[in-house]
């Protein structure tokens, strides 16, 4: 384990092969609702990248030093059998909600321009499944800290790419003749299916 190539491989896997939207169906609610407009898609895509890159490592620390089986052993050797992993869900979601709030306040204070473009999307993504999903996958795959950071950033970037692609396709579709009752979500689903098929072409790649 180790080396630049190993991290590059995790990154490409997270972006293309196991894209969090197109292969794992996470974050679809905001994916479908917001991809009607390109500007908004770029906004939420960037917000997801920022929040995933921040929350995944924080949840990694909490999981490794507090929640995992035997994680509290640094406090006292008696705690070797303590296993708090049933608290994982509630702690992760609280950390995510708190971090989103914090990022929002930080942005408002230090960068008005960034706040006005990303601000309205931040509360939305607190309940976006891709953020919690990223943290849960990180636990399930037993990543170390660097891998977690790379994975968090990669998944966020994958979401960004996917929503930008869908928004662009939907923009072009505006002038096409779709059966009226297929318009909207139905068509977006079929298009996502096609995008997902396109991304499957990457599945053989192994760095």
């Amino acid at each position: 384990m180790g080396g630049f190539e190993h991290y590059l491989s995790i990154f490409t896997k997270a972006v293309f092969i196991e894209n969090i939207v197109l292969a794992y169906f996470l974050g679809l609610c905001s994916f479908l609702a917001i991809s009607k407009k390109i500007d908004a898609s770029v906004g939420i895509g960037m917000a997801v990248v920022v929040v995933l890159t921040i929350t995944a490592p924080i949840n990694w620390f909490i999981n490794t030093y507090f929640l995992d089986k035997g994680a509290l052993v640094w406090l006292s050797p008696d705690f070797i059998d303590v296993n708090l992993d049933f608290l994982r869900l509630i702690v992760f979601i609280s950390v995510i909600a708190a971090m989103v709030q914090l990022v929002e306040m930080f942005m408002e204070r230090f960068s008005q321009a960034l706040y006005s473009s990303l601000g309205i999307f931040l509360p939305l993504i607190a309940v976006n499944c891709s953020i919690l999903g990223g943290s849960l996958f990180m636990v399930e795959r037993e990543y170390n800290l660097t891998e977690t950071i790379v994975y968090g950033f990669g998944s966020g970037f994958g979401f960004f790419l996917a929503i930008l692609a869908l928004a662009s396709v939907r923009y072009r579709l505006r002038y096409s003749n779709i059966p009226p009752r297929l318009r909207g979500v139905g068509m977006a689903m079929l298009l996502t299916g096609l995008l997902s098929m396109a991304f499957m072409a990457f599945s053989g790649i192994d760095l």
Partner: protein
Amino acid sequence: MEIFNSESKKIISDPLSINNPISLQVLGICSALAVTIRLDQAIIMTIAVIFVLCSSNVILSALRNFIPNRVRIVVMLSIIASLVTVVDQVLQAYLYDMSKQLSVFVGLIITNCIIMGRAEAFALKHGPSKAFLDGLGNGLGYGMIIIIVSFFRELFGAGTITLPNGGAGYELFSIPEAWYAAGYENIGLLVLSPGAFFILGLVIWTQRELFGIEEGE
């Protein structure tokens, strides 16, 4: 109070038809697709979602006058997260194989938009008994769609129909060998993720044709 009057019936039946949470309100699609590879996974997931949705609706509706408006999201999230933890622990205790197969998607019921959406739109404005019916109706509406999707994905993708039975599942039906010998083939694409998007897209289209609903874009 009459529990089966026409208003209560409407609360239950609307989510099954003209106000379906997945196909018309577009909530909770995230988990809907991931667990539809096999029918038994979809059925267990439906039961879990109905349990969480009904309980969270009742609890939040009973507490609705005590929750300050500014912190309601955090309160909602913590109540929902506790309920989901209960479901997760029960699954790990009694259906361990199933909980391994559903992996992170049980935990992701927390961020399933149906639960937050119904709490926000209904439970915080109505009494507990109505909120319970609303939870039941929306849970059933969610279950209906994912059961339809998983039925087609499993039947045409893997050639079987599996009902829940412990962890491994009970195979109710599988396409006979003679068919394969005669040249029938499973559609491998349906088992992969694009298949889920296509089937759900077609289900949404069919449902909108049936109820005559159009979406302005």
